[in-house]
């Protein structure tokens, strides 16, 4: 197969970390090439260099035989390289056509553009209305905007950064059909992921990065997922121990909990009913933006719920704020570490006071006992192996994984009766993720009830006893994990009531 993009010795260092170290590989024409690696392995940096967002310190690239060194994304686009970002670069207040125009070098007149968008979306089975405001679209639809934006430029190389992380299994199928069609037309695709089965199903070649280095290239169909995983992770880590045991009484129950959307682009909660027992882990899946944040805020007390909808140990806590619920023993951990679970510019000691003030007795008569607060922060740091110079360090100075260990540990050490946590291992390296999952299981083993909201299905299957899914603010009935297969999960996540089935021509 002829080579489209050849990468030779790309190196990029940031203060304190070498993001890419002498990385070389080739992408063939009409090939779907996987770029595989854990969070922090250097995939994003590599891709940013290919797309002209970051300038390499050393190394060179050639596109179709000609030297290729994009100084900015528009250079890359002119050369026929397009990219679909993991975190979409979309503008919520603008409409689909405007968003597409912004991603093009020489967009046609608005009317022609709208027509082209309709054409491409039909050809590739990606239905989309050019006049819709992007803020009103689902995550899957937003991704279509990004893809169509790229396709309108007739790219030779399409880069996709973790495209399936926001999709339901059914939407993933549609996406794969689109990508296969593109391959058949001769377009090359650089496909970034850490999901091994997905790569085995889709990709022709795979390059694996670990700690910034290319640790091997393979043909995914010819190797096992296990072989790829070993290359990716390098060393083994402890998988959470399976546990058994009787579940106790119901500790937390919601009864048809409904709440209006918090903002213009938020999701309302619609009659969410759930219950979780002592010693049990309830996993809640769902594609991003289906009410996860809203559910957490309703359970934590940040947004008060209508009376008679949330019961903790049989008591109605719907009208209690976060302080009252914490006092009772209902603790929570939001998804967004910086800015929600922790104040970025404040020290770890101060962040320990943020939720531990009362349960840990850090405040006496309105005055903060800084000595005691520091001791509590140090305890969290020690017990959860948080790598930091000390409790005086600002939260934002910690890496994602370490901060996540701190904010989860902060709640767990307060011995909650019920702990609700959203995306506990998002953006966290494998070792830290395993440690956090183990801590959650240990907490459950001690008799706490735990709700884990996550977009990582593997994680939920691994630690949950029962499983439910959020779709547009509705929660499916929970089922025991043992009864489930991927097909059923997909239907639960897609909200089986209004499945949109798109088909691909050709």
């Amino acid at each position, binding site marked *: 197969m002829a080579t489209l993009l050849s990468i030779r010795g790309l190196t990029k260092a940031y203060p304190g970390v070498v993001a890419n170290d002498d990385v070389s590989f080739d992408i063939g024409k009409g090939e779907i090439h996987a770029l595989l690696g854990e969070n922090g392995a250097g995939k994003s*940096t590599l891709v940013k260099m290919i797309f002209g967002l*970051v300038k390499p310190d050393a190394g060179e690239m050639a596109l179709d035989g000609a030297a290729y060194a994009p100084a*900015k994304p528009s250079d890359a686009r002119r050369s026929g390289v397009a990219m679909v*970002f993991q975190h979409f*670069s*979309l*503008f*919520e207040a*603008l409409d689909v056509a405007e968003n597409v125009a912004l991603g093009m070098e020489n967009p046609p007149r608005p009317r022609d553009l709208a027509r082209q968008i309709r054409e491409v979306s039909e050809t590739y089975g990606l239905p989309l209305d050019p006049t819709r405001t992007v803020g009103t679209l689902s995550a899957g639809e937003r991704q279509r905007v990004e893809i169509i934006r790229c396709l309108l430029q007739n790219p030779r190389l399409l880069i996709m950064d973790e495209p399936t992380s926001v999709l339901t299994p059914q939407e993933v199928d549609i996406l794969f059909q689109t990508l296969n069609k593109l391959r058949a037309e001769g377009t090359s695709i650089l496909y970034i992921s850490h999901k091994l089965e997905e790569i085995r199903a889709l990709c022709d070649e795979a390059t694996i990065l670990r700690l910034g280095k290319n640790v091997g290239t393979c043909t995914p169909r010819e190797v096992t997922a296990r072989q790829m995983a070993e290359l990716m992770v390098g060393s083994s880590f402890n998988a959470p121990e399976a546990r058994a045991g009787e579940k106790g009484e119901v500790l937390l129950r919601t009864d048809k909990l409904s709440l209006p959307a918090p903002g213009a682009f938020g999701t309302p909660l619609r009659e969410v009913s759930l219950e979780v027992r002592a010693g049990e882990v309830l996993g809640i899946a769902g594609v991003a933006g289906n009410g996860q944040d809203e559910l957490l805020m309703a359970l934590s007390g940040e947004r008060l719920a209508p009376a008679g909808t949330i019961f903790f140990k049989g008591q109605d806590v719907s009208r209690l704020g976060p302080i009252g619920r914490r006092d009772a023993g209902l603790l929570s951990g939001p998804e967004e570490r910086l800015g929600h679970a922790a104040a970025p510019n404040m020290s770890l000691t101060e962040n320990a006071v943020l939720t531990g003030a009362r349960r840990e007795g850090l405040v006496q008569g309105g005055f903060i006992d800084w000595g005691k607060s520091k001791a509590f922060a140090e305890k969290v740091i020690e017990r959860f192996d948080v790598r930091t110079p000390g409790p005086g360090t600002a939260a934002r100075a910690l890496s994602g994984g370490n901060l996540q260990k701190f904010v989860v540990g902060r709640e767990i050490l307060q011995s909650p009766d019920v702990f609700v946590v959203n995306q506990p291992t998002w953006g966290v390296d494998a070792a830290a993720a395993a440690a956090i999952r183990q801590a959650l299981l240990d907490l459950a083993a001690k008799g706490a009830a735990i709700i884990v909201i996550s977009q990582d299905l593997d994680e939920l299957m691994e630690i949950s006893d029962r499983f439910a899914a959020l779709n547009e603010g509705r929660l499916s009935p929970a089922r025991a994990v043992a009864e489930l297969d991927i097909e059923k999960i997909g239907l639960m996540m897609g909200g089986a009531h209004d499945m949109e089935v798109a088909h691909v021509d050709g």
Partner: protein
Amino acid sequence: MDPVLLVASIMVSATPILLAALGEMVVEKAGVLNLGVEGMMITGAVVGFAAAVSTGSPVVGFLAAALASAVLSLSFGFLTQVLLSNQVATGLGLTLVGLGLSALVGAGFEGVRAPGMGKLWIPGLAEIPVIGPMFFRHDFMVYVSLLLVAGVWAFLKYTRAGLILRAVGEDHESAHALGYKVVRVRLAAIFFGGACAGLGGAYVSLVRVPQWTEGMTAGAGWIALAIVVFASWRPLGVLIGAYLFGGVTVLQLNLQAAGAKVPVELLSMSPYLITILVLVIISARGVHGAPGSLGRSFHASA
């Protein structure tokens, strides 16, 4: 009160705020909150006045005012966009600097009269009875301000540059990821906003009053900021807001002159009270259209 004169004077009274608010709207559309409008207006007022008096030409005065305020606004731009200072604090600082600077520059110009500005009769239209004297016999800046409203509207709605400016204001991270120069776009918007505020200030000292007194803009810049909110960041809304406000000002001045049985102080404070009232009504209705990145600093990391 002669309705013809009333309408004509409302247009004159509204023009400074219209200009300043239009400029600020563009700045805010780009995601920058510049609270220094008052400072840029007063600088424009004094520089425009000084230049017009020195050269005898109001046109030179307006050009000088626009340039001076735009340059001053770039200091705000440099601080907030390059040195990443807090926009609220820096905007306040800009106002304080502008007030001090203008008082210093203007000390020698107190009591001087500005050179007169000719009225531009729009051929054909100016002769229409009633309508003509109301709308088509003004100085050129009134028309310039109206053309600017139309120009900004078309720019934002139909041009690619306008789309990019809006995109930068909505989400600077995404705009950056697409390769747009966030800081440059914003500096350009700030420069334009400064020039507009300068024109508005010069209109106060050259046409409305027309002479120089210290602190003569008397909060017009702040009212312009309120009008941007009132307008929900739309050019037509800015026009309506400025003219409504101009109407209130003219009415209260006329009532004062007519010796109405209302305390003078109550009349003088009425424009500010009405501004508050308008802000309250707008916020009760729910603010719509505020650019997503408004007031947030942008720092391109890696």
